[in-house]
């Protein structure tokens, strides 16, 4: 690839970044997200896993927040703040992994459905329609019941069920790209399907996919918490959803142990909100339809 192309892309990136920075809400979301990710990464040194071992803890069960335990302790005497940090790892991991999976499937299927015609397109579109119509939470519940319980099952359950809307968006973008003259030109020069899809369509849909991804992570985190809350995850791993489930199962609602319920709940809301803010800003910057000032 020529230096000119790179230069052009770098310039484009810089322009987009500058534009993104002009969306204050998006910026706030991005800063908070970086903070959460850093905290999640720093969880092992900050709160050693041994300190959350139920057989090692010395604190009482259900202690109210104090200086020693800023967010109190849970029904086994573990520090809720520590679990919150560890839970961020699971929630973010599932959020990112499931989204990556859903994006890959969605992009590939969407591009194929836009590029090919006839029977292939018809078949792909019906598959997409199927996944659009089936309530994804129900499908995810069925999947995670059938598969062995665990974090990766949840990743698969979310990833497999949430790609359809991405595929529709990508397909639409593929259609508009492919109607452009330069595609026709390269076709006339003898370019095959692989070349057109890989060299021309993919780079053109990528920005859209990126914006979509940021939005999808939030949805995946909610889905993870929902599934864990419904008891479909592995309840012995720390995640925000399983913290909520544990609190309810042990009667925290009746007993009024708010410090076991509010922190994971608020954490979910906050992180999802951040992803939404970032995603919305990115979408406005990158989506040609929403880009109103050009």
């Amino acid at each position, binding site marked *: 690839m020529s230096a000119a192309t790179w230069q052009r892309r770098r310039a484009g990136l810089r322009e987009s970044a500058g534009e993104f920075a002009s969306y204050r809400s998006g910026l706030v979301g991005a800063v908070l997200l970086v903070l959460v990710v850093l905290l999640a990464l720093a969880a092992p040194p900050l709160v050693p896993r041994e300190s959350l071992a139920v057989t090692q803890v010395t604190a009482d069960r259900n202690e109210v927040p104090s200086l020693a335990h800023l967010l109190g302790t849970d029904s086994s005497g573990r520090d809720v703040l520590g679990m919150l940090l560890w839970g961020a790892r699971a929630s973010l991991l599932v959020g990112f992994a499931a989204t990556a999976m859903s994006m890959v499937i969605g992009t590939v299927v969407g591009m194929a459905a836009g590029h090919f015609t006839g029977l292939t397109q018809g078949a792909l579109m019906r598959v997409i329609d199927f996944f659009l119509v089936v309530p994804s939470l129900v499908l995810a519940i069925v999947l995670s019941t059938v598969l062995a319980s665990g974090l990766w099952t949840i990743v698969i359950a979310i990833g497999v069920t949430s790609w359809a809307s991405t595929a529709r968006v990508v397909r639409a973008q593929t259609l508009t790209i492919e109607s452009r003259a330069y595609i026709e030109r390269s076709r006339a020069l003898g370019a095959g399907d692989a070349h057109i899809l890989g060299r021309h369509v993919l780079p053109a849909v990528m920005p859209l996919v990126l914006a979509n991804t940021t939005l999808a992570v*939030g949805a995946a985190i909610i889905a993870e918490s929902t599934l864990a809350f419904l008891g479909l995850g592995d309840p012995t791993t720390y995640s925000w959803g399983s913290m909520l489930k544990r609190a309810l199962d042990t009667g925290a609602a*009746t007993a009024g142990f708010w410090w076991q319920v509010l922190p994971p709940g608020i954490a979910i809301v906050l992180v999802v909100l951040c992803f939404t803010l970032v*995603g919305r800003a990115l979408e406005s910057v990158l989506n040609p*339809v929403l880009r109103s000032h050009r």
Partner: protein
Amino acid sequence: MSPSPALRRPSTARPRLVAAALAALLVVLTALVATGVQRPARAAESDSDAVLRIAYSSTVDTFNPFVSIYLTPTGVNRFVYENLVAYGTENEATEGLAESWDTSEDALTWTFTLGDDREWSDGEPVVADDVVFTYTSIMENPETLGANHGLTTNIESVTAVDEKTVEMTLIEPQAANPGFEIPIVPAHVWEDVDDPAAFPADSEVVGSGPFVIESYDETSGTLELVANETYWRGAPEIAGVRYVKYDNVDASVQGLRSGEVDIVGGLTPAQYDTLEADGSGEIATNAGTGRRYLALAINPGATTAGGEAFGDSNPALADPDLRTAILMAVDKEELVDRILGGYGTPGETEVPASYPDFTGFAEGVEPLEFDLDGANALLDEAGYERGPDGTRLDLEGNPLELRLMGDTENADHVQLAEFVGEWLGEIGIAVTPELIGGDAVGERSIAGNYDMYFTSWSLGPDPDFQLSINTCDARPETPGGADNLSESNWCSPEFDALYAEQRTELDPEARSELVRESFSAIYEARVNYPIWYADALEAYRSDRFEGFTLQPEGSGPILGQNGYWGVYGASEVEPGSGGSGAGDGVPGWLLPVGVGAVVLVVGGVLLGRRRSAGDDRE
């Protein structure tokens, strides 16, 4: 940034889409709230006639006494159908339909004399034919009417000597009274039923107990029972009992606080402590000694009755030393303290402390003590060397990795899995928790597909049944067959001999000792290790009802008894005072539901916006 004309459509469409998404969410939310906090419709102001409302959240299969095996309906049927011989308030044998019974010299013939005052709720007298009909129906149709078939396997025949005398001939002598635990049905009603196995028996039921079923609404789960005016011990003081279904105990606790129900069982320690500290003076609590044990079962390698191995247990577990070491790493006191909050008793044998005649070890049995060093030493000695990562290797040289199965819906199991997993880690055994649905746990334990799992069982006053499911005969005919009744997939000829001996021992004291020896044999086989006998934690509206009879008296539970005493003894505190209970403070369930709602709304806005950005683009 004024939008160009081409962009108007999406921008005007957006609010509508968001609104649609939010509306859809609202539906979802309402459904969620409705399922989480199901508030049953209250029957039109019937409070004044003192109906005791019992909250429940467990499954109902059927109220047909020949078929039902679930806890709630079999418990209800204890109110509806008197047994030939009942369990008294101290779990002793006492008058039921029979006012007296006699055993022949060889203990093979039991003669029961029915009381003259025993009547069905429709006014017909209870006669010997009713008993004969009930027993022979079960014995002749073990497949279809066999919920209680296990209790009749030693009965040769049941005959009516005269209208009020029943004679039972046994195959071999038996210590347990054959009149226990079988609900007697009215022959004059059931004879006319075409397909007794499919008969729902849930409306206008004719019974002989203190209450009879009036109606059952399957959709809402509400069950109405009315007092049986012809009940031979005297009609109950209250007018009836209503079972009100809640989807979880938290919701039923709120129901109790707001006066929607009068009694709630199955509380968690946190709920119990909160209700106990309740200063309103409207709610009283009861921590009754439970009749249920919770144990850690270890699969020693399941076999069929023919001795064929099946299941996927880790073959290393066939070694008793390994099983002993595992159990030495379980600190029962700590678990009772930290999970049950002290509301329980550390387990010994399978018989809970509430049955003094049979609980405890036989003489000379050494209970296992929690001892991590000892467990490590035992494993070292047995040749389980530590691998490079600290995990021990089995005798074949493979890492010792064991699965620990439990019910994901059971908070006790989830917490136990964490404790046991960490302790076993300290003795070099890697544990993979497998918390799955309750039905799946049942299926896999029957199929022998487990290494270790948490199991619990409620025991009746007579231990014969519990022992019978540990005999070699309880094993299935075919590998993993549904006829696998074996509690621990374990078989020992010595145990079978003890079992047979206690079964025919008619001297109560000698039998007690034999029963203890039998249960101690299970304990020493290290296949089923009772961790605790949890207390039954209950709370009730003391401003409305009093006089519940506990079983055992003074220490037992109100609900879930071996009989009807708790509810039968209830009386109203102040007739007609019910009224609308004052809700105190913010209902606790609002908190999690609120957080959930916020999460969903944020998610919904997000989804709605995604749609809005994406949909109109093609």
